[in-house]
């Protein structure tokens, strides 16, 4: 995000300049992409004038904050060195901040490792063909995503204390709660990561004689994990931020330690500021890493590695990833008509259908024939299975329709592509995502193996 904002500052200053900054685009591409006409001399003067006004307003805002710090009604000057000194002294660092930070990091590391394990297990569970396992994993994951982490923490804290863990109750409560919540998020990341792989991977694995489970474990999930690594680092930021909740259940993390220090010298405001800066720096660095990482990882997976689309995944769930992927893939920087394709929203905390598997990537989408809604992504068996009972879902077609479509498609393609049942290979040629093809940028494309940018 910061990289974008830096770019924004350099970019064309005309109106709505920041709008079409595509986060996945190479910075150079952004700069070269002049979105609007250069503003003329008058517009430039006006912008410069407003810029000065803006600077003044912003400075006035900060000045007001400082003034409020210095003169709280009936209070003492919060900027005085008397109050800041104990918050910044060497003792404060050695006895409060650093142990607190260590505790925070300890809980975060343990929690992220645990949530990886949890996430991979339940992610695979949700992808298995066995109905009962899928059901159980879905219920567990959905439940863990819906319940506020703080409630988990209080529950486990009291539960563990009741079971006789006196010392580590708060610590383990923090870790377990974070594992449950973030693990369920990771499970969704794994699931959507596997969903984003080209189907050929699975087909190849099956053709080599692997069982579906073996294919998941050896072929699909590892690639999905690499593809989702940036999003997982964002998740690490979430974990780190959420450990601060531990202070509510008396876990002595950074926040709790700074509160303790603050209550000793009556300068909680100052100590909290220091703690806030520490939190900010760590989270910010991690966010930066997760933004830079995709470029380095792309060659290790056929999935599309991308930086996490947006931080709300932070506070929420990976369904955001899909939703916002879709939001960004719709961009058409050069304007023009968009290809027609249904714009479903797949997944929220509440609704989990299998529709994401079917419709969020339509491999067979042909830009030359945008009205063709035939989905060649999934093998016949998938459709067959869905159409024989079970709820109706987007992308489902009956057997007859399917056969007809296959025949029709084979004809239109001149029978040149003799692929296996029901999957014409146009998908792998036109790219992953129909929408992104037309909107793809020069510059960011090259990183993606299928020529489609995300």
């Amino acid at each position: 995000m910061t990289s974008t904002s830096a770019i924004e500052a350099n970019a064309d200053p005309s109106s709505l300049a920041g709008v079409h900054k595509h986060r996945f685009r190479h910075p150079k591409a952004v700069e070269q992409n002049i979105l609007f006409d250069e503003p003329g001399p008058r517009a430039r003067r006006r912008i410069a004038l407003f810029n000065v006004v803006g600077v003044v307003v912003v400075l006035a805002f900060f000045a007001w904050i400082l003034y409020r710090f210095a003169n709280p009604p009936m209070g003492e000057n919060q900027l005085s060195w008397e109050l800041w000194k104990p918050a910044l002294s060497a003792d404060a660092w050695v006895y409060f901040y650093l142990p607190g930070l260590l505790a925070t990091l300890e809980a975060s590391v343990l929690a992220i490792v645990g949530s990886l394990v949890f996430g991979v297990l339940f992610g695979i569970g949700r992808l298995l063909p066995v109905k009962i396992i899928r059901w159980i994993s879905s219920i567990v994951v959905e439940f863990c995503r819906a319940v506020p982490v703080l409630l988990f923490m209080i529950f486990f804290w009291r539960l563990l204390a009741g079971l006789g863990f006196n010392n580590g109750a708060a610590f383990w409560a923090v870790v377990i709660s974070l594992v449950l919540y973030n693990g369920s998020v990771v499970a969704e990341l794994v699931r959507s990561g596997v969903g984003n792989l080209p189907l050929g991977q699975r087909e190849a694995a099956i053709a080599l004689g692997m069982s579906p489970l073996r294919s998941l474990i050896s072929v699909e999930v590892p690639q999905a994990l690499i593809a989702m690594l940036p999003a997982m680092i964002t998740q690490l930021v979430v974990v780190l931020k959420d450990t601060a909740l531990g202070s509510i259940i008396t876990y002595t993390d950074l926040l709790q330690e700074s509160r303790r220090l603050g209550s000793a010298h009556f300068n909680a405001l100052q100590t909290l500021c220091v703690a806030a800066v520490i939190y900010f720096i760590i989270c910010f660095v991690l966010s930066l890493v997760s933004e830079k990482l995709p470029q380095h990882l792309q060659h290790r997976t056929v999935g599309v590695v991308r930086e996490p689309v947006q931080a709300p995944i932070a506070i929420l769930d990976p369904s955001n990833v899909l939703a916002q992927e879709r939001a960004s893939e719709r961009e058409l920087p050069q304007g023009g008509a968009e290809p027609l394709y249904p714009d479903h929203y797949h997944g929220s905390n509440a609704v989990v259908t299998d529709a994401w598997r079917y419709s969020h990537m339509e491999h067979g989408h042909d830009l030359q024939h945008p009205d063709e809604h035939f989905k060649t992504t999934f093998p016949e068996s998938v459709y067959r299975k869905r159409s024989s009972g079970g709820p109706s879902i987007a992308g489902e077609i009956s057997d007859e329709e399917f056969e007809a479509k296959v025949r029709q498609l084979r004809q239109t393609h001149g029978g040149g592509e003799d692929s296996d049942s029901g999957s014409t290979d146009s998908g792998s040629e036109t790219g992953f995502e129909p929408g992104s093809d037309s909107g793809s940028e020069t510059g960011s494309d090259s990183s993606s193996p299928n020529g489609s940018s995300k």
Partner: protein
Amino acid sequence: MQAMLTLLSQYDVLGAFWVNIQLTLWSALFSLILGVVLVMMRISPIPSLRAFASGFVEFFKNMPLTIIMVFMLLGAFVQLRFQFSSTFSSNFYWLAITGLSLYTSVFVCESLRSGINTVPLGQAEAARSLGLGFFQTAGLIVLPQAFRGSVAPLGNTLIALLKNSTVAAACSVATETSTLMKTMIEYNASSIVAVFMIFAIGYVILIIPIGLLTTWLSNTLAVRR
């Protein structure tokens, strides 16, 4: 089950949930307003405002909500003497809403930005060629479509906000769910699982309709292009 019913009759669980819903609604309102202002600043042609908005977003995005809430209590109230009301309880209530709004507005801003990405460039170009200025382009053309395109992330932000409203406990809002749960567990340690399930199921029940509504709305409102 029996334990749950007795507990429900003993404690005002619904009232606690109502407090959380109120916190959520107020914060949603304020963070929506602030989020729109932020996103307008971020897309404006004025560099200083853009820089301020992105700094603001980065700052709150990388800040734990708990520390914001504790700051609202110990920093803003105790030391800076910010007061919304003379009574303690409503004062804490509004401080918590302030903290939640500040934190959430950043995510509203980011959701809207992702929505703005769904608006084709041609729309803004057409608006400009019609002679519309920045506010007209943003307010009449781009933002309305952006809102329709960002229903899904906004809904997710709302769900997160509802869950985050439990953190108001860190700001001494004593009537909300997590505090009540703590109290209930203290007095009914034997039926701790029942207590937890009451609240957990309560949240599941609250969140499912929001998710359904979001999905439906985002499919209904999405601009078909």
